[in-house]
């Protein structure tokens, strides 16, 4: 058996793991990273990036179809457009491939040794990797577990040709005529919307009493409205049961009333589970917090020298949280004093329209016992939004009533994902309403709605 030793071993080259390894390499830490598949993890290969590529293609196609239908208010017209999904997917794969190569290059540049294969703990300092060329034993002073998460499978609806996960949905070669989406969370709605725009008849089944349950009703409302416009049927309080006998439909039950949903494909997006099996967690006996690995504010697990970052450590399962944890863990291993001190982890939902949240919602802020002020500005009153046919949605600011410290910023609207940066920055910098109101926001942009929301909270909105 071949044996190598290093100072830091990172298990998993997703956004958390590869950032951790690059940062450790930059700091001169002798680092090895192990990945069984391609660099980039869920996010880059089967998550954020490819889904956004597909969503973009679907949006473009949908616009062309709208123009072809002769209803374009912009005065555009064209003959019936067509889409070759196989080519779309190939284009998307090209982007993924470029980014794969990019990550691999960055790791190399940082002096990180990458090992491809399945890793398994032997003990807290030793990992065996099953590589193409045989078993590789790696001894490390510190280990960062970044094994990520995987889609949850339903027992009665196992993944296969008809029943697909988000990964399967991103690799379809043709647009299914009918698509049933189980789970009205952000992944299901993002993909469901994309396929509706590509021409599928989409039905969404949600077990809870409304879609996007992690957002307040005000934020999900514009999305709900748009789903209706796109002809997507949404059933809430509905349980999916099994495939129909002919395999072309999905049997479901709404409040005890059974019915069948036409479904050439069934997309299951009922959540993701942390990957805590298959890499020898039982050899090192880590404490869990629920389904996740328990960590402290320095990403340390219950075993000395072993850290965990990313989806395997809990909610929110977001790439940028994993990246920040990875960077911090690398610096701690390199001897820097660091601990988790972030005030907010912004979250973006790439539905139509998009939803952004940073910090506390009004209900969460009230729950802490703080008296709050709220300012909300609709895009209907924003000039830039009008010029892009994007008047749905709003920006909402929540601040402390006593000193106007901004506690949370939320938005729903087209392209608001790009506003997430200024939202998070405002919160991390400890901005008060007056700071936002006193910053000139360029005209004409949708970002003006942010400043106006702050004005509104201060009681002197200008444009509403």
């Amino acid at each position, binding site marked *: 058996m071949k044996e190598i030793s290093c100072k830091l071993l990172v298990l998993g080259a997703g956004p958390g793991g590869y950032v951790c390894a690059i940062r450790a390499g930059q700091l001169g830490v002798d680092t090895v990273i192990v990945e069984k598949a391609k660099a980039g993890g869920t996010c880059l290969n089967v998550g954020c990036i490819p889904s956004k590529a597909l969503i973009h293609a679907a949006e473009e196609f949908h616009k062309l179809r709208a123009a072809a239908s002769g209803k374009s208010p912009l005065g555009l017209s064209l003959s019936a457009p067509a889409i070759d999904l196989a080519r779309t997917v190939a284009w998307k794969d090209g982007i993924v491939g470029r980014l794969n190569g990019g990550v691999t290059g960055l790791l190399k540049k940082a002096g990180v040794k990458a090992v491809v294969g399945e890793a398994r703990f032997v003990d807290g300092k030793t990992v065996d990797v099953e590589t193409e060329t045989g078993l590789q034993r790696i001894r490390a002073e510190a280990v960062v577990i970044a094994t990520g998460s995987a889609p949850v499978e339903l027992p009665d609806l196992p993944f296969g040709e008809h029943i697909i996960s988000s990964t399967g949905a991103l690799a379809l070669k043709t647009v299914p005529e009918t698509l049933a989406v189980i789970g009205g969370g952000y992944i299901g709605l993002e993909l469901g919307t994309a396929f509706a725009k590509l021409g599928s008849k989409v039905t969404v089944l949600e077990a809870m009493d409304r879609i996007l349950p992690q957002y307040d009703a005000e934020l999900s409302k514009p999305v709900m409205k748009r789903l209706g416009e796109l002809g997507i049927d949404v059933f809430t309080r509905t349980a999916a049961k099994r495939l129909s006998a002919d395999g072309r439909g999905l049997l479901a039950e709404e409040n005890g009333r059974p019915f069948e949903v036409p479904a050439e494909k069934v997309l299951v997006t009922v959540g993701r589970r942390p990957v805590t099996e298959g890499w020898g967690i039982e050899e090192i006996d880590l404490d869990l917090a629920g389904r996740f690995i328990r960590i402290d504010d320095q990403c340390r697990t219950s075993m000395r020298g072993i850290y965990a970052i990313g989806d395997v450590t809990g909610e929110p399962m977001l790439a940028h949280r994993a990246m920040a944890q990875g960077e911090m863990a690398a610096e701690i291993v390199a001897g820097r004093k660091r601990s988790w001190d972030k005030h907010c982890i912004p979250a973006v939902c790439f539905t139509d329209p998009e939803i952004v949240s940073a910090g506390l919602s009004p209900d969460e802020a009230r729950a*802490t016992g703080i008296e709050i002020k*709220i300012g*909300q500005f609709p895009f209907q009153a924003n000039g830039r939004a009008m010029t892009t046919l994007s008047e749905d949605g709003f920006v909402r600011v929540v601040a402390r009533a006593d000193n106007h*410290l901004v506690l949370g910023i939320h938005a729903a609207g087209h392209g608001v994902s790009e506003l997430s940066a200024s939202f998070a920055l405002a919160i991390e910098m*400890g901005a*008060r309403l007056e700071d936002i109101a006193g910053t000139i926001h360029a005209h004409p942009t949708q970002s003006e709605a942010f400043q106006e929301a702050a004005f509104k*909270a201060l*009681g002197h909105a200008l444009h509403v």
Partner: protein
Amino acid sequence: MGEFILKMPDVGEGVAEAELVEWHVKLGDPVREDMVLAAVMTDKATVEIPSPVSGKVLWLGAEVGDTVAVKAPLVRIETAAEAGEPPPDSIPQALAEDVLEEPVAVSAPPEAKAPPKPEAIETRPAPAPREAPDVSKKPLASPAVRLRAKDSGVDLRQVTGTGPAGRITHDDLDLFLSRGAQPAPAITGLVRKTAVEEIKVTGLRRRIAEKMTLSTSRIPHITYVEEMDMTALEDLRATMNRDRKPDQPKLTVLPFLMRALVKTIAEQPGVNATFDDGAGVIHRHAAVHIGIATQTPAGLTVPVVRHAEARGIWDCAAELNRLADAARTGTATRDELTGSTITISSLGALGGIASTPVINHPEVAIVGVNKIAIRPVWDGTQFVPRKIMNLSSSFDHRVIDGWDAATFVQRLKTLLETPALIFVEG
């Protein structure tokens, strides 16, 4: 949508105003009929104010600690009643306009203008708890300041922020570092603490503060401490407790002291009095209403055993227990917390040799019980172990002379040391 204005109810006879001590609801909260909205305090009794209607809280008329006049608007509640139905009480226009400018008013996109459905609020699932949304514990500083602090080993919770909203600036950090603040030493685990917690003095605590200021600033106290041999009384008490009937409460020293007080007061009525110094009148009371200083979770209260002169020792004990429980659970009524003519304070359980009790204004005397301890006492031929207790009593020196005070305490001593005398008629 109708609107109901709840005014501060008449919470006690002759009470013109009450202090708001707690809100049980927040702005925007749904309320049901009979749900408690607020707690107000008059004198020493706390009264809970229930909602007479169901609906949603639109406006809160006072802040905790405010004194609200009886009949002043306290809460405005949006009710499900139709707009056509006149609200039970209309409000002045100016007030209505104030309310429209409440900071929580939110501009909603026009399609959201539909009247909110109250049921929707209840059926909506609570948002999934997210990672540590506790903003209060994190020091407010920009990421760059946080990084510098980490690198310098500074715990930002110890740095005072001078920026907007208490934000810690680079200058604040520089100042902290230049003062030679040692990087938080992990070696000793001892760190400087500079936090100052602000606690608003409200409710019972404010009453206590006012009362103590009044008592000590108005009344020139004379405190007299004497030791009592409690051996005989303790023997008697043990016997009575052993042989008591099932329905009789366990006796402490206090019922004996109460009966001894009654007996002494009969001979020296001057100590069972209230002094109206404004009018220059002393009211000597025939009734002996004994206040019992009682520690409750909220603070010191003084429930009153009324007409101790008409109660036997078992009755005194039972009433004492009942009142102490009521005071501790906060269910004592206003009547049970006022009207004492003399007060007993007992810190004996905690130890202490002597105390300087503060007179419960406008009374003129207070008797403080200290700890009973077994001490060697010379009986003329040898040291014998005796149960000794100090009694620390304060008197209003304006109306009670030292001689009278001492006479009073000496008489108490005689009764307590020969407890049979407590029970002798006449």
